[in-house]
């Protein structure tokens, strides 16, 4: 558990972080909470020559009511998202998902931006923000751009972020009283989901996304479309895996994952429709 040698610099602002990463390019990685990156480094699966620590960039930790949406700074810790009154009121599905990340120690260090930028399909927040139709604000040397969550995830641990860009804000549309449910199926309380479902439903409109059902978080558009067309919940849930391409691993074969997805989507929509 000894990483390969690396250098370390601490950034005090987003601008400084970007200027540093422009200098070092693909040899550098941002370090936020460290809960995804450091284990990879200790197993020598990742060997960045330079770590740019953005964990002390204070101006990127915030949760604001911005009218039609919530604006959440990328360095906001999971614990703060979980316990925020504003999030509970306007995006309770996100608060619930945040409460499921790892365990209490992880939630005090891990950040929403780190989780999204890491782009692990088995993480809870990428799928949840995808279901909620979030937009990610990204900053680079040439300025800011906004990326819809549905365009952000490109492949396993791959996102639309360029090597010299940094995620700075997550914009989550307000849920406006929609019913919702977060279903995380795992064997142990602190594990990643074997399959997870983030779902909301209001008056025939629904948003459903899947955790750990492919190389990216999956937006279950077939389910949402079926609901919009008036299908029953169980008929819609049967389409859960239409957009998915689940892997087989020690916990679950891809067939079992597909089965779980339809069960969990059904349960999520039932709960969201109460």
């Amino acid at each position, binding site marked *: 558990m000894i990483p390969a040698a690396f250098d370390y610099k601490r950034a005090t602002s987003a601008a400084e972080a970007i200027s540093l990463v422009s200098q070092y390019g693909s040899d550098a990685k941002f370090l936020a909470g460290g809960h995804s990156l450091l284990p990879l480094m200790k197993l020598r699966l990742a060997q960045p020559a330079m770590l740019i620590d953005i964990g002390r960039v204070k101006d990127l930790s915030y949760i604001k009511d911005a009218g039609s949406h919530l604006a959440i700074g990328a360095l906001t810790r999971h614990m703060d998202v979980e316990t925020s009154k504003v999030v509970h009121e306007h995006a309770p599905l996100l608060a619930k998902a945040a409460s499921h990340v790892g365990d209490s120690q992880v939630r005090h260090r891990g950040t929403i931006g780190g989780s999204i930028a890491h782009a692990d399909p088995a993480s809870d927040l990428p799928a949840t923000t995808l279901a909620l139709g979030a937009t990610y604000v990204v900053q680079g040397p040439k300025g800011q751009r906004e990326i819809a969550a549905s365009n952000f995830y490109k492949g396993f641990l791959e996102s639309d972020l360029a090597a010299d860009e940094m995620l700075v804000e997550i914009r989550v549309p307000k849920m406006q009283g929609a019913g919702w449910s977060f279903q995380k199926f795992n064997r142990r309380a602190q594990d990643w989901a074997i399959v997870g479902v983030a779902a909301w439903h209001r008056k025939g409109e629904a948003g459903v996304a899947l955790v750990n059902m492919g190389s990216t978080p999956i937006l279950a558009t077939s389910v949402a479309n079926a609901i919009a067309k008036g299908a029953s919940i169980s008929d819609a849930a049967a389409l859960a895996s239409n957009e998915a391409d689940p892997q087989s691993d020690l916990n*679950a074969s891809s067939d079992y994952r597909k089965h779980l997805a339809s069960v969990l989507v059904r349960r999520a929509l039932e709960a969201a429709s109460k």
Partner: protein
Amino acid sequence: MTITENKPTSVIGTRLLRREDPPLLTGEAKFTNDLNIPGALHLTVLRSPYAHAKIKSIDVSAALKIAGVIAIYTGKDLQSSWASPMPCAWPVTPDMKNPAHYPLAIDKVNYVGDGVAAILATNEVASRDALDAIDVQYEPLKAVVDLEDSLSDKNIIHTELGTNKSYTWPLLVEETPGCVEEAFKKAKYKVKERYVQQRLIPMAMEPRAIVAVPQPFGGDITLYSSTQIPHILKVMTALTLGIPEQQVRVVAPSVGGGFGSKLDVYAEELLCMALSRKHNAPVRWVEERSENTQATIQGRGQIQHVELAADENGKITAVRVRIVGDMGAYLQLVTPGVPLLGAFLYAGVYDIPKAYDFECTSVFTNLTPTDAYRGAGRPEATYAIEMAMEALARAMKIDSFELRKRNYIKKEQFPYVAFSGLTYDSGDHLLAAEKAAKMTDLAGVRAQQKKQNVPGATKLLGLGMSSYFEMCGLAPSRVLASLNYSAGGWEAATVRVLPTNKVQVITGTSPHGQGHETSWAMIAAEKLGVAPEDVDVLHSDTAISALGLDTYGSRSLPVGGVAIALACDKVIEKAKTIAAHQLECATEDLQFANGTFSVKGSPDRALPLAAIAFGAFTAHNLPEGCEPNLEAQVSYDPPNFSWPFGTHMCVVEVDTETGAVEILKYIAVDDCGNQINPLIVEGQVHGGVVQGIAQALFEEAVYDEDGNLKSSNLAEYLVPAACDVPSITTGHTITPSPTNQLGVKGIGEAGTIGAAPTVISAIIDALSGLGVTTMAMPASPQTVWKTIQAATSGGKK
């Protein structure tokens, strides 16, 4: 002797908080890797990435150039360091095949993790970097991973042996020749079951760590190791390295759990010692967790075929068992003996005639070597007989508890001479079982089950149970001799009353989380009439505790604790002669109570132990022939194993749509005879039960067909945490052991022995309405769901 149940006295039987805990909980306790040893070099071991391969070449030139790297050794380089191969202390049969096993592989590697090179560096970063820079050319060979494939000998691992079979060990006990086969022929009911005991990774919280520290002159060497067996290690390392035994000192600092995985003589211990002598510098080695999963022994690994024959009432008339044991690539310290520790127990707690046909064949595989792991052979045996009883009850269409009641050895039958000739010391299986049933609210659960398990229900309730007993408290040495075990089973104790009436207890047990300091202090305090805090317990350092056989097999209390009580008796006897002399009376006229000797009938003529102790030290007025000082040493060889027992029950809810299993209730009723400290007993039961639940639901060392471990870290090997297991409700009965003055039995492994069949039988019970009659371990959600599909018309993969 008549042993009566403990009545709460001043200390024994109380829930005294453990003195071990404050240092452990505050981080003050020193584990091996906490030791500050200036100038220590770091050892890292390069391990084979192949399960089976020839070593063609090893090129260390690039690695040697890394700053901080001092030397790199291959297996060939170190051959002259060993006087003999690594020891196996249990040649179970005269013709047992044991391939020579050295700390580093020489021409061939036989499991992923097999050591290939030893790197010495000034710091651990350099030694870790050097791992990546060594170039080993391998010629991969087909790996033998499956037990049935190994048995076939199609692909032989250790070619010099000519076979993969290490041994075949039979235990055939027949009243008349052929009566077993006869019983099966005419049985009214019989069952034939196949079970698989999956490999488990012991996962002690502290991975292994070692520092070998040589003295500059004279050849002495101190081995600090996270070990359960300092005494055994001393002898074995001296023999293997060919150095005089008195030069070796072994110290186990605080050890963070072992569960059998630290009951061994490991390659790294020998490497640290050999290299520290070579370089005249301390050498330290620390295991990484993912290294531990492959380089430290694993547990279990068996295929079991179990058959029961029964008459029209369900009374068992014969038992037939065939086991294939998985040794792994090499035989470590007691590897071959582990399946045999259960050999006598496949009839469980039931009264059977002399019709018992057991045979175990153990084979090599290209996997990590197995060895003792909590229960070591007895969880496997208990699982087999208890699950077979469930199958028999199903065949007879009667309740399995009822079937058990018809077969339990009855209280009046104890001490019970079993078919094997072994004597089970004491027990009352029905009492423990009925207590468990009451605590579980058996009738209430069945009523709830009837309401809940209706057709179409997706969450099904199930009730499971197991009645177990086990043989522990290793062990009467002459019995070990008859089993070909290379060591004895005694335990040593010195009890010394210091001049100021403080007591030193020196024990040969080597605790690694069991709370021996607290428990032994309680025993000595009770016997000598002193306060427990005035008793100091010394252990785990062969320079201080010279004699002992260490801690494993739930032996420390029934053997080590009893040795302490006997040593206290000797101390009291000597003190009595001094008291009689000083009080000018006969020893028969004296009584000893509350730490004071007094003349019977004249309580004012008295002397406290404190005065005797000081008087023994000054030696101013001792009787003729009486030596100064007040201490006694005992080596105690127990006359029998100890036989704790109990019944566990649990209630589960199975979500048939996902296969998820939730344990709603877990009740453990265990009987370990008299309890020295109920708090410690409960702790042992809780921990043991969790490890059994873990085998039932969570844990498995998963290998692919090439012998690669797929579950090699804590994300993939699923050790349950507190929130993943139910609140365990413990109860107990007390059936004192008649074989020792304390009336105690062991308890360390009992929880693990009882738990797995309890959980699996509950899952089967929940799903019985769907036609499910078997369930593999671990019963993961996927396994449960697929079993349901196969049993119902679903039948999809």
